[in-house]
C-alpha cells in the first residue's frame, strides 16, 4: 500500500484527514483511488496537485510508477519565474 499524505488544500475533501494508504501502482491509479474514497478529490488532485513520490516530484504524469510502499506527498503544482 502506498502511503499518501495531503496538505490543507485537500482537507475540504478528506474532512481534515491528512494521511491514508491506497492500493495503486501509478499516479493515475492513486488519483482514481482517492476519488473513490473522497468523491471529487481525484479531479481536484489531477488539476491542482503534484506528486512527490519517494522524494521526487512528478507533475502531470499519470503513468509515473508508485511503489507498493512508496511515500507519496501531494503538494501544489509548482511553476516558477
Amino acid at each position: 500500500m502506498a502511503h499518501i499524505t495531503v496538505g490543507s488544500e485537500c482537507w475540504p475533501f478528506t474532512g481534515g484527514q491528512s494521511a491514508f494508504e491506497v492500493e495503486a501502482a501509478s499516479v493515475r491509479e492513486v488519483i482514481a483511488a482517492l476519488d473513490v474514497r473522497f468523491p471529487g478529490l481525484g479531479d481536484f488532485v489531477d488539476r491542482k496537485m503534484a506528486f512527490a513520490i519517494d522524494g521526487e516530484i512528478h507533475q502531470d504524469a499519470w503513468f509515473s510508477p508508485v511503489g507498493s510502499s512508496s511515500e507519496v506527498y501531494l503538494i501544489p503544482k509548482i511553476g516558477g519565474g
Partner: protein
Amino acid sequence: MSETLDKPAAQATLNVVGTRPIRPDGADKVTGRATYGADYNMPGQLVGRILRSPHAHARIVSIDASRARALPGVKAVVTSADFPDLASEMHDGGEAASNLRDLSLNVMARGKVLYDGHAVAAVAAVSAAVAEEALSRIKVIYETLPHVIDVEPAMSPDAPVLHDYMFTEGLETPPTVASNIAKRHKNVRGDVDAAFAAADVIVEDRYTTQAVHQGYIEPQACVAAWAEDGRCEVWSSSQGQFMVRTYCAKILGLEISDIRVTPAEIGGGFGGKTTVYLEPIALALSRASGHPVKMVMTREDVFRATGPTSGAVMHVKLGALSDGTITAATVELKFQAGAFPGSPVGAACMTALACYDIANFTIVGWDVVTNTPKTAAYRAPGAPIAAFAVESAVDDLARKLGMDPIALREKNAVRDGTKASYGPTFQNIGYVETLAAIRDSDHYKSPLKPNQGRGVAVGFWFNIGGESTAAIHISEDGSAAVVTGNPDIGGSRASMAMMAAETLGVPVERVRPMIGDTASIGYSMLTGGSRTTFATGMAVVQAAEKVILDLRQRAAKLWEVSLDHVVWRMGQAECIDPAKPEKKPMTLAALAAQSGRTGGPISAQVTLNAQGAGPGFGVHLCDLEVDPETGHTSIVRYTAAQDVGRAIHPSYVEGQIQGGVAQGVGWALNEAYIFDRDGRMENAGFLDYRMPVASDLPMLDTIMIEVPNPRHPFGAKGVGEVPIVPPLAAVANAMRGAIGVRMSSLPLSPPAVLAALDGKGG
C-alpha cells in the same frame, strides 16, 4: 524506445559540457542584429495603442469611441465588447493553470477597472501620433470606487471589495461574505505551542516588503496579423510561444490551429513574460482593421500594467534550544496578489522553512487581491520574500544564541533523507556542501572595515521539469541543427547546442541551436521554473541518442555487421566486429554525406514530460558599507555559492547567479512601487524606480557546487531562480551588522537607513 534511450548518456569524460564556448547568440546581440519583439514589421501594419484607466478602482459607466473612430487614419477601436465574456475556468497554458476569466479581464477591463493602468480600450491607426490623438478622443465615464493598495488594509472586513463573487478558499468554515482574501494556505507539523514553551531562546519580528517589478530591459512587444481566412499570426517577445497561442485562442474564442506564434528574441523576462497582455488586443485590432497591428509598451505601460511581484507583510517567530537546535517556528505570510487572485504566497509557504529541519512549525499564507496590477511570476516566485523574513529571524537567533550564523544553519540544515517542510524527502541535494563552501571561503574570513557589516542568508527553490520537444536535423556535411520550443532567456541555446554536441561527439561549433515557432516544433511548456536546461535538455540528449542509433544502424548495413558490432565514439561509428578488422571508422560527416542512399535525411525528434528535477540551494555572503551621514549603502563584496547539479556552460551559470544577486540587491536596497493617495503609481519609470546598474555593484563572486541530479543525463539542476532567494536577507543581515539595528522593512533606502540610525541614536 530503444535501449539507448532508456538509460542516461553515461559520460566518463566530457569534452563539451563544462566548457565555456562563445555563446551562439552573442554576436547578434552585441551588433544589434538580434530581432526582438519591437524589431518585427509587416507591410501595411498599423500602430496599436491602449487607453488605460487613471483610477485605481472604478465602475465603467460608458465608453464613447465615436470621435476616435471618426479621426482620419484610425482603422479600429476595440473594447471589452470585442472579446468574449468568459466564464470562470481554470486552464493549463502557462506553467500552472490560470483562470481564463481573470486573464481576459486583465487584458481588457469589463465593467470595472481594478488598478491604475488597467486597459479599457485600444486603437489601431496609421501612425503613433494618430493613435495617441485617437486615445484622447475616447470618452470614458467612470464612477470611482474606494480602493485599497496595501495587503493588511485589503484584508480588513471593512475594506472595499474588488470582486463580490470571491469567497476565501482554504478555511475550515467556508465564509458567507465576499472579501479580498482569495485563499489561505496552511502547513503544520508537530506541536508548535509545546515546542515554544520548551524553547530556551525565542526571536520574533514583523517584516514588510514592497511590490517590485521584474525590470526586464525589453518592454512587451508584438505584431499580430489576422488574415482574411481567419488564420492568425503573432510575432512576440514572451517566455513561451505556446503559452501565447493558447491564451490568445481562449481569450478570443479561436481554434488553436488558427494561430501561429513565432517567438522573438527576448530581452529579459524573469517570469514577467509568462502571460499575455498585448497579443490578444493586437489580434482583435487586426481583425477589426484588416491590417497587421504592431504594439509596443512604453516603460510606463510596463510598470503600470504588467505584473510586479507581491508586496508583503510577514510575521516570523523562531524557538531554539541553547545548543542552537531550532525546535519551533511560526510563519505568517500576507501577500498582495494584485487585481486578481494568484500571488506566489503558496510557493512562499512551501519554501519558507525548506532549508531547515524543524520538528514543529505552523506556516500560514494569505493570498489577497488589491487595486494594483495583477502580480506575475518573478524568479523563484514568493521565495525571496519569505526568505527575507525567515533569514532575518535566523540571523537574530544566531546573535541571541551567540552562534556563528553559518554554524547555526549547518546545525539545522536539511540533508539527503530529511523530510522537507513541504512534505517530500530530500535526495541528492548539495545544501551542506554549499554552506561549507561559504564558511571556508576567503571572503568569510576577511576582516571588515568601519561602517561595514556582513550578512549571510540561504535560499531554496524546487526547480521543475515538464513538457518539452526537441528535434535534431543532420545536414549533409555532418553539421546539426537543434530545434526546441523554448525561448532563450538565460542561455539555453548554448546549453542545448553543447549537450547535443557532447552526445553526438562533434564540436559545438557544428551545432546550430534554433527556437521553433508553434507550427514547426512540438509543444513545449514555457521557459520558466528553471526547467529548460533540465527538461528540454533531456529531450535534446534523447534526440541526439536517436540520431546516433540511426547512424549506427546505417553503418551496420554498410559494413554488413550486426548493430551490436557498431559503437559510436567521439563523433564516429566504429566497427568492433572481430571478423572485420578492416572496417575503418565512419564519421558523422561521412555518414551524413551518404544519407540519401542509406535511408534518407537523418533527423530525430523527442517529446517528453520530464520528471525528477532536482531542487537547488544557495548560500550568499554580503559585505556592505553604510555612509552614516547620507544613509547610502554600498555593496563592497558579495559571494554566492549554489548547488547547480552540473554546470553545462559555467559562464552562463555564473551569469544566472550574478543576475539573481543584482536583482535581489536592488529589491533590498531601493526598489518599490510607490502609490499616491488615489492609488496611482508615482514612479513608473527607471528614473524614479531605482534598479541597480553596473556601477552600483562590485564584481559578484560565485562558487558552483556540483552535486549531480541523477535524473538528468549530465546531472543538471535548474539554476535561474535560487540566486534571487537569499540576497534580500543577506543584505538586510549585513545592514544589521553595519548599523547595529535590525531593519525589517524593505527597501533599505537611504532615508530608511538614516531613520534607523536616528532611532538608534535616540
